[in-house]
């Protein structure tokens, strides 16, 4: 069955779902501000009031299967970060500040948005240094810049490692950049790396922009725009009705969308990844393939051990601070033996807490909010988003 959903806001401006605000003005959707006790209390309430329909739903969800990446690629359009770049173009005046940051959380697309922006504005794109250069604290990559340069760094987290030489090199670069000695530029940076550099180097004074948080409705519009014409009918497992609103904006499982937005702290990239990880198709013995696609709200928190030890948390934190790392680099930023580090990383990967992207390991989308909350509870430095 072909898709019947249509994007209610497909013709919106380039900034739809990607409006920018300053980092200080970022406010996550309301549900995320509920503290752990409130969440636990709600969970107890849900457990107490568990009805037959819930049990039936759980049984039905057990029969569903995760679609292959190939099928997902046919049903879903890839996330487009050009609107974020356009929003940046509208908002940013390169001449006004020597440096401007675009901050997004993991999966937030700052690197691709900055690349789009650099192409559109004709900026010199500064590539990340090699691993050897990173380990030696080499800063020759910035020598090509002068006071007249106009440049862009898509992902600042790729330009340093949390080591003494890494900190010294990125500090020198940022100090020179903020003084205007390197001309004017725009820097894309992961929100965790930014939080770390803000503490370790000090980034006060440089404007920092970030996409506004999405609520359930805006997220529904964004998801609807990413469904390809080949996508089967998308139903919510909770209501057994369409997940997304129709062209007039009516219908849809607003509660599921709001919860997805809250679980992802209103971040579009994270929500997009979590949405894909939550899609299920009927099992082999059920309905024919391509008949219907189910959205099942997935909870990644279960993958996290409740008594997570220091080693495990330090590995997770190091990966977040660097926007994901390979094993070699991970061993360079942790005070453990290589064996211990890799063993812990493997354990987390097996549990589904980590996933591999572009040969780097990073926290899986479904586990991100749980990991962030756990780290915050244990007094680790967390991002502002």
């Amino acid at each position: 069955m072909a898709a019947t959903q249509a994007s209610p806001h497909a013709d919106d401006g380039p900034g739809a779902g990607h409006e920018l605000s300053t980092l200080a003005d970022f406010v996550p959707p309301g549900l995320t501000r509920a503290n752990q006790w409130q969440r636990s209390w709600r969970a107890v309430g849900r457990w107490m009031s568990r009805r037959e329909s819930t049990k039936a739903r759980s049984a039905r969800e057990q029969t569903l299967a995760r679609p292959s990446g190939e099928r997902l690629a046919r049903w879903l359009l890839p996330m487009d970060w050009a609107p974020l770049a356009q929003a940046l173009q509208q908002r940013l005046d390169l001449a006004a500040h020597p440096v401007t940051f675009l901050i997004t959380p993991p999966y937030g697309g700052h690197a691709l948005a900055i690349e789009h922006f650099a192409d559109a504005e004709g900026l010199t794109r500064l590539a990340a240094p090699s691993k050897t250069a990173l380990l030696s604290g080499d800063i020759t990559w910035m020598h090509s810049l002068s006071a007249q340069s106009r440049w862009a760094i898509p992902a600042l987290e790729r330009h340093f490692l949390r080591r003494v030489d890494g900190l010294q090199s990125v500090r020198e670069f940022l100090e020179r950049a903020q003084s205007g000695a390197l001309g004017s530029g725009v820097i894309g940076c992961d929100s965790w790396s930014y939080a770390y550099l803000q503490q370790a180097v000090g980034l006060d004074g440089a404007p920092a922009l970030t996409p506004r948080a999405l609520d359930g409705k805006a997220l529904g519009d964004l998801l609807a725009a990413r469904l390809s014409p080949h996508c089967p009918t998308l139903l919510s497992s909770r209501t057994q009705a369409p997940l997304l609103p129709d062209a007039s904006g009516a219908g849809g499982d607003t509660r599921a969308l709001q919860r997805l937005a809250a679980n992802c702290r209103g971040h579009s990239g994270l929500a997009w990844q979590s949405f894909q990880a939550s899609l299920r198709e009927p099992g082999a013995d059920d309905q024919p393939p391509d008949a219907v696609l189910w959205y099942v709200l997935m909870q990644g928190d279960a993958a996290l051990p409740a008594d997570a030890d220091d080693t495990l948390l330090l590995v997770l934190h190091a990966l977040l601070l660097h926007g994901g790392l390979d094993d070699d680099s991970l061993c360079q930023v942790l005070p453990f033996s290589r064996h211990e580090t890799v063993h812990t990383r493997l354990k987390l990967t097996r549990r589904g807490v980590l996933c591999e992207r572009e040969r780097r390991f990073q926290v899986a989308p479904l586990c991100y909010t749980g990991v962030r909350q756990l780290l915050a509870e244990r007094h680790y430095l967390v991002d502002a988003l």
Partner: protein
Amino acid sequence: MDDAATGQYAKLFNDLDSEALITLGVVLGATILLIILSQRGLNWLANRLHGQARFRTFALVPVTRLLILVAALVISVPIIIKPSLGNMIALLGVAGLAIGFALKDYVSSLIAGVVSAVEMPYRPGDWVEIDGVYGEVKHVGLRTVDVVTADDDLVAIPHLKLWDSAIYNANNGGVSLQCVASFYLHPEHEAEWVRTALRDVALTSAYLRFGKPVVVVAEEQPWGTHYRIRAYPLDPRQQFDFVTDLTVRSKAVLSAAGIRPALLPPDAALPARHRH
């Protein structure tokens, strides 16, 4: 004379019939059970909590036990003794004599235990130094406080020390515990560079707790320069890992920069301690 004394004695105590004995037995049994349950339950709960909640829950252990004991005494004493002013004075007088002569130190420790439950100079989870013993408080009992040292030795220290010994509490019921890593360098070096490098070592430590000051202190000595990094780990239990990490990486950075350690004369050697 004898009859009068017997009459006075009889007035002090109630007749303990079978009902009174059963009540006393029930109170005793319930007290023991409640103490065991509260201690195990609160310890179980505290070990599953983190941060401030863990310390607060641990702190409830001795207070809860004290309350249970006081409640048991309040229930039991009127059953055994007629609650009149004269009887109470007589009872306290006798108890005071016994305490004064036989159990002076023991009772002093018990009373200090009561004081420690109220004043809280140490709580489970605190890192304290008492009479040269440094470690984590694991249990605050009625008479002693159990401290586990970094070498995993359990040391039972009587509360009696509370009266006349200085008690150093490194985190005082909180999660902030300052650590110090010391470095003794040859006098010929660029001090400003060393200070920045040592600060960067702290800022790149995986154990560092941000939001707390990171300070490098330098002190000139006849034999060279004594540097200290003062910073806070994420959790007090990480203090030895944190200091080790600072030490190992600082040595590597200083060595790579060609900075030599000071060669201390034997009489100038300082005790290697994590706190100063």
